[in-house]
């Protein structure tokens, strides 16, 4: 079937997708930590010690949250898939 892709193409697409999504996550993290740690005063061009430390912690926390939410989402979508499977099975039985 022309619309099916083989294993290699699938791996490549997955890798590309991962890179793209990682870049997107990175941009969002930057934006979020900027909001959280840098007061919009801009009295001086350098990062203060407090701001630097805040950014370090912010990145650590963002990645942790991102991880935890990812796990929960995977759980949820697996549960959904289970429900869909059961529904399909039931429909097939009814059609017999």
């Amino acid at each position, binding site marked *: 079937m022309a*619309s099916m892709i083989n294993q290699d193409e*699938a791996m490549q697409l997955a890798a590309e997708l991962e890179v793209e999504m990682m870049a997107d*996550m990175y941009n*969002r993290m930057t934006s979020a930590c900027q909001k959280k*740690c840098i007061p919009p005063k801009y009295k001086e061009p350098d990062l203060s010690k407090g701001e630097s430390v805040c950014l370090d*912690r912010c990145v650590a926390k963002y990645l*942790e949250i991102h991880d*935890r*939410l990812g796990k*929960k989402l995977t759980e949820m979508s697996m549960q959904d898939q289970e429900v869909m499977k059961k529904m399909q099975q039931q429909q097939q039985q009814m059609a017999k």
Partner: protein
Amino acid sequence: MAEQPAAEQIKQFRDFLQTYNRISENCFVDCVHDFTSRKILDTEDTCASHCLAKYMKVTQRIGQRFQEYQLTQNEAMIAAQGKGILPGR
């Protein structure tokens, strides 16, 4: 779901990942306020959990309302076509 063409599946998966990133950003900004340590506090963890669940329900509900809206739009369009206001039968 394996009957869907591959392109469709990829698009769906891509959208899913995009949503995931959005949720992470949103819930982080709304729930995490303490930067005195690198650890996630229990309150922040709970908040993020609830945030995720709520976000899913929000998108569900918005989807429903939008579908309803589209239905009424469709009906209005069909009615207008019938009256000869719009071209097309």
